[in-house]
């Protein structure tokens, strides 16, 4: 029994410790601190456009984290979809709802202390739980784990049906967005804006 335990003990490499982090872990922690800081600034800043730009930093840092966890295709999809389209959509939404460019004092609603309490409580609970559960778990990052070739193979051999279902979902979302954002058909003529009324006034003169 003791020989078995000794053998099991020797299977654990001595390098696995909090006190001697590997290079990947150090980079992961640094980028993680950046992501977390950008996320906190993004949800607390009073400048709405700055919040969207800090969201870019947070999501880009997460793409780097995906690369460090060997998921390279997911990382590039993150860059393309989130940084390329979602943030642009958010910026368009901010502009089309006439968000003020400068600091807006009413960016936070009145229940901010309650929100802070809920956020801190959930963070404390989940961090305690997660650290307790995965204290002695290690990720083995060696070998070809998440190359794009492997991603394509498993996506189109095991996940074809969900993939196609998602394309139908995207089509439905596209049609829904068009239907929602279309104006009523009976009002074909655009209402006169400031420029148009000014022009007609100058013509009348």
């Amino acid at each position, binding site marked *: 029994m003791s020989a078995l335990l000794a053998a099991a003990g020797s299977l654990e490499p001595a390098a696995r410790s*909090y006190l001697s982090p*590997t290079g990947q*872990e150090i980079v*992961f922690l640094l980028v993680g601190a950046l*992501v*977390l800081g950008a996320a*906190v600034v993004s*949800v607390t800043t009073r400048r*709405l456009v700055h*919040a*969207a730009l800090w*969201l870019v930093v*947070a999501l880009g840092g*997460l793409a780097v984290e995906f690369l460090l*966890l*060997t*998921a390279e*295709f*997911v990382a590039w*999809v*993150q860059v393309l*979809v*989130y940084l390329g389209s*979602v943030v642009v*959509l*958010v910026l*368009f*939404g*901010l502009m089309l*709802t006439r*968000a003020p460019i400068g600091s807006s004092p009413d960016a*936070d*609603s009145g*229940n*901010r202390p309650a*929100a802070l309490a*809920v*956020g801190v409580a*959930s*963070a404390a609970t*989940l*961090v305690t739980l*997660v650290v307790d559960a*995965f*204290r002695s*778990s290690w*990720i083995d990052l060696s070998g070809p784990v998440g190359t794009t070739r492997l*991603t394509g193979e*498993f*996506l189109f051999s*095991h996940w074809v049906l*969900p*993939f196609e279902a*998602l394309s139908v*979902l*995207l089509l439905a*979302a596209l049609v829904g*967005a068009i239907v*929602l*954002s279309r104006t009523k058909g009976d009002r074909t003529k655009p209402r006169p804006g400031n420029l148009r009324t000014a022009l007609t006034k100058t013509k009348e003169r």
Partner: protein
Amino acid sequence: MHLAYPAVLAVLLFSVGVYGVLARRNVVLVLMSVELMLNAVNLNLVAFDVWLRDTLHAGQALTLFTITVAAAEIGLGLAIVLLVYRTRRTAAVDLVTALGDRHEADVPADAAEEKEQAAA
């Protein structure tokens, strides 16, 4: 790599997203916080996929699907936000209360008196 690092980072990101959803007033900023929460889930999925060495790579596949659903969600969400802005001229979530219960203080006193008179 230690599994606790990505798990703790995902938990903290999720909590930041929860705070943002509850504390923000502008709808677009609420949607941004929802994106943060979805990304925390993505990080968890990727980390556990590489930890478990799943042959089906369910974690990475689900991450791709989550990203797609998030893109659809933000598109539809912003369409709804623009519709609300067009009809109500506001993008503040606490001013769009047409479907909510009326607060006690908002109920006019006449209505309560009328009810009492009708009961009498």
